[in-house]
C-alpha cells in the first residue's frame, strides 16, 4: 500500500545531527525522510501529497524519552502501553523507553515481547522496552539480556531500585557489552536513603520528614562510574539530581569512561520548596533538591555533561497520592509537560538554545540508547516533532491523555507545545486549532 507523501512546509527546521537550523521544507515518502532543508517549491507526487503548514513552528527529529513507566502489565488502572504512548505523542515524543518495574517484572523475552506487541497495537509513539538487570529486579541473578534484546529490549535497568550490589553491577556492565546496550542505573544508596521521603536539608528538618541526602545518589553514581571504568561497559545514570553527581559525571567523562546521564524536567525546574505543605505531587525519587542543585543541573545539560532530558513519567492513582506524605508513592507524570518545562525554564531564560534543546531531547537519546531516529537525514525513518516554541498554555492535568494526573505543574503557565507528532511518516498526534489536544492515531 502506498501512503501519500507528506510535506512539512515552511517551518524552522532544526536538526543538530546535521547542523541544520533553517526555514524550509521536510518531505516524507514511504515512511522515510527524503528531504529536509531548503524550500522545495511546488511538489507533486502520484500517490498524493498532504501538506502541513509549519509556519512559525519548529520542525525537529522526534523527541525520545528514554525513561518512563507505562505500568503495563500490572497497573493498567494507572497507565497502559497504549495510554502512555498516546500521552507521549501528545507531548511531542515519537518514542519512549518503558522501564521494567512492571508486575510481573519485565525480565524475560516473553515479557519484553508483550510490550512490543502492545505498542504495535496502539500504533502511536514507539515504545522500546528496557529489560530488568536482575530476575524479578531482586538484585540477585542476572536476567537474560541476550534474549530480551532479541525480543526488542534496548537496554537494561532495575529502575525503581538501584542495581543492588557492586558485584552485580560489574557483571551486568561486562555482560551487556556483548549486546551493545547500556545498563541504566537508579542511583540510590539504600541504607542512607531508607525511609526518606524528600531531600535532606532545612526543609525536611522543618517539616519533620526523613530526608534523603545527596550522598545517597552520589555514592552510587561514583560506584557505577568506577565500575564502568573497570569493565569498559556503558553505564547510563538515570534522573540525576545533585550538583555532586554532575561533578562526578564530569570527572568520568574527562577520563573517557563510558558514562552517560539523564536529568528530568522537574529536577531542572523545581526545588525542595515545592514540598512545603506536604504536596505529594512534589514527591519523587530522587527528590527535588536545592536551587544550587537545579543551577548545576541546568548548566550540565547545557554543556553536555548530562547528555539528555528524560521524564521519569510515573503515573499514580489519585487515591495513592491523596494521603500522608511519607506514605504516598514516589513519582509524577511528565510526558505532556516535559517540552514546555524545559522551554520555560531553560530556553526562555537563555540557558539552552533551540538546537541544544533538540539535541538533548532527540539526538542524544537516540545516540545513547542506539535507537532509530534522532535525525532528519535523508533516508532516516520519519519520526518528527513539530512544536510551537512560543505557545503559552496553562497546565490542566485533567486534560492529560495519560491516565495519570499527578503533576506538580497543575495551574502553571508554561511556554512551548507540541503541535504535531509524526511516527514513521504517519501523524499520530495533532493539536487542533483551539489548542486543545486530540489524538488522531
Amino acid at each position: 500500500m502506498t501512503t501519500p507523501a507528506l510535506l512539512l512546509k515552511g517551518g524552522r527546521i532544526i536538526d543538530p545531527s546535521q547542523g541544520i537550523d533553517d526555514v524550509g521544507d521536510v518531505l516524507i515518502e514511504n515512511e522515510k525522510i527524503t528531504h529536509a532543508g531548503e524550500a522545495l517549491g511546488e511538489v507533486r507526487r502520484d500517490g498524493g501529497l498532504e501538506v502541513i503548514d509549519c509556519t512559525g513552528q519548529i520542525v525537529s527529529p522526534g523527541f525520545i524519552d528514554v525513561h518512563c513507566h507505562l505500568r503495563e502489565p500490572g497497573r493498567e488502572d494507572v497507565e497502559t502501553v497504549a495510554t502512555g504512548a498516546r500521552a507521549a505523542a501528545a507531548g511531542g515524543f515519537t518514542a519512549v523507553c518503558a522501564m521494567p518495574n512492571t508486575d510481573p517484572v519485565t525480565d524475560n523475552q516473553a515479557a519484553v515481547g508483550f510490550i512490543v506487541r502492545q505498542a504495535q497495537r496502539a500504533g502511536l509513539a514507539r515504545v522500546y522496552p528496557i529489560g530488568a538487570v536482575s530476575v524479578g529486579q531482586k538484585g540477585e541473578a542476572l536476567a537474560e539480556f541476550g534474549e530480551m534484546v532479541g525480543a526488542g529490549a534496548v537496554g537494561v535497568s532495575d529502575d525503581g531500585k538501584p542495581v543492588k550490589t557492586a558485584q552485580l553491577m560489574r557483571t551486568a556492565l561486562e555482560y551487556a557489552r556483548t549486546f551493545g546496550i547500556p545498563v541504566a542505573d537508579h542511583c540510590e544508596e539504600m541504607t542512607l536513603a531508607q525511609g526518606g521521603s524528600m531531600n535532606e536539608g532545612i526543609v525536611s528538618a522543618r517539616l519533620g520528614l526523613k530526608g534523603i541526602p545527596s550522598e545517597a545518589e552520589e555514592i552510587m553514581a561514583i560506584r557505577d562510574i568506577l565500575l564502568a571504568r573497570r569493565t569498559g561497559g556503558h553505564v547510563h545514570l538515570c534522573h540525576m539530581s545533585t550538583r555532586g553527581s554532575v561533578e562526578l559525571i564530569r570527572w568520568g567523562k574527562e577520563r573517557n569512561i563510558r558514562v552517560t546521564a539523564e536529568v528530568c524536567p522537574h529536577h531542572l525546574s523545581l526545588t525542595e520548596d515545592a514540598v512545603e505543605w506536604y504536596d505529594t505531587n512534589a514527591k519523587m525519587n530522587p527528590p527535588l533538591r536545592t536551587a544550587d542543585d537545579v543551577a548545576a543541573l541546568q548548566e550540565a545539560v547545557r554543556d553536555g555533561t548530562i547528555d539528555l532530558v528524560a521524564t521519569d513519567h510515573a503515573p499514580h492513582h489519585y487515591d495513592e497520592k491523596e494521603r500522608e506524605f511519607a506514605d504516598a508513592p514516589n513519582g509524577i507524570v511528565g510526558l505532556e509537560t516535559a517540552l514546555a518545562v524545559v522551554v520555560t525554564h531553560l530556553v526562555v531564560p537563555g540557558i539552552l538554545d533551540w538546537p541544544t534543546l533538540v539535541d538533548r531531547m532527540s539526538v542524544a537519546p537516540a545516540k545513547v540508547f542506539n535507537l532509530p531516529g534522532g535525525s532528519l537525514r535523508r533516508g532516516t525513518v520519519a519520526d518528527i516533532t513539530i512544536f510551537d516554541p512560543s505557545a503559552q498554555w496553562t497546565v490542566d492535568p485533567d486534560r492529560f491523555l495519560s491516565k495519570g494526573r499527578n503533576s506538580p505543574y497543575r495551574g502553571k503557565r508554561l511556554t512551548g507545545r507540541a503541535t504535531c507528532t509524526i511516527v514513521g511518516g504517519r501523524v499520530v498526534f495533532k493539536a487542533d486549532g483551539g489548542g486543545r489536544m486530540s489524538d488522531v492515531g
Partner: protein
Amino acid sequence: MTSPVLGKDLLGLEELSAEQITLILDTAEPLKEISERTIKKVPALRGMTIVNLFFEPSTRTRISFEFAEKRLSADTVNVAASGSSVSKGETLVDTARNLEAMRIDMVVIRHGASGAARFLADRIKSNVINAGDGTHEHPTQGLLDLLTLRDRLGDLRGRRVCLCGDVLHSRVARSNLWGLKKLGAEVAVCGPRSLLPNAIDQMGVQVFDRIEAAIEWAEALNILRLQLERMQGGYIPSLREYNRVFGVTRERLDRAPRDILIMHPGPMNRGVEIDSDVADGPHSVILDQVTNGVAIRMAVLYLLAGGLPELAEAAKG
C-alpha cells in the same frame, strides 16, 4: 467556625505570629482557675461536638484534651486507631469525611505521619487541632511549655532555653523551637549529632555538643524523651552511654552557675535522659507543665470555637 485570632486550625507554631502565640497564652491565663474549682465546668463550648482522633497511642495528651473539652462542656468522642475502621484499611481522608458527615465541629488529631494534621485540615471544614503529627509539630505542647516558662521567667525575650536530646525525631522540639524564637527567647539544642537534624545550623539555634556546656549556658532545660527505639535504630549505642554523656543529673546541675528550670514533656525515662532526683527536684516544673496543658488546650478550643481572648474571663460564667 473560624477564629478571628487563629483562623480555622491550629497546625503548628511555625506558622503563628508572636501576637497569636501571646494571645493564646493570655487566654489560657484566666482559664487555669476553672480546673481549681470544685465543679470544673463552664458552658463555653456547650453544644459543640469534638472528635479526638488518635492514630497513635497517647495517654497524657488525649486525657488533657478530653479534660479541656469536658470542662468547657463540649460533647466529645474518642476514636483510637485500633478497633475502628482505620484498622480495616480506611484512609485518613475517608475517616475524616465520615466523621464530618456526622456534623462535628472540631477534630483533634494525633497521627504518626508528619503533615497529617494539615492534610486533614485542607480537606474538611471542621476546625483541626494538631495533637502531634509525626516528627513535625506538637503545638499545644509547645504552647504549654511556653506558658510554664512564662509563669516562672516572665517575659521570655532574651531568656536562654535549651532543648536537650532527640531533636531529630521530636515534634515537641520543633514546636518549642519556633514558639520560643517567636517570643524572643534564645534557643539552643544539645544532643548527639546523630539525633540532631543535619540542617540544625540553618535553624537559628545554638548547638551544644556537651550537656555540661548547655547547663552552663541555660536558664531552662527542656529535656526530650529518648525513645527506646532510637537505640535499635542505631542512632546511639546504648541508653547507658546516653545517660553517662547526655543525662541531666543532679551532679551536673550542681555545677551550674544558676538555678535551672527543668522541664520534660513526658513520659520520662528516669535514669536515661533525666535522673529521678532532677525530675523530682526543687527546680522541676514538670507537673506544672501538665497542669498548664489543660488550660492551654481549653484556650485553643475556646479560640477556635470563635471565642475572643478578651472575653475569656467572662466565658467562665
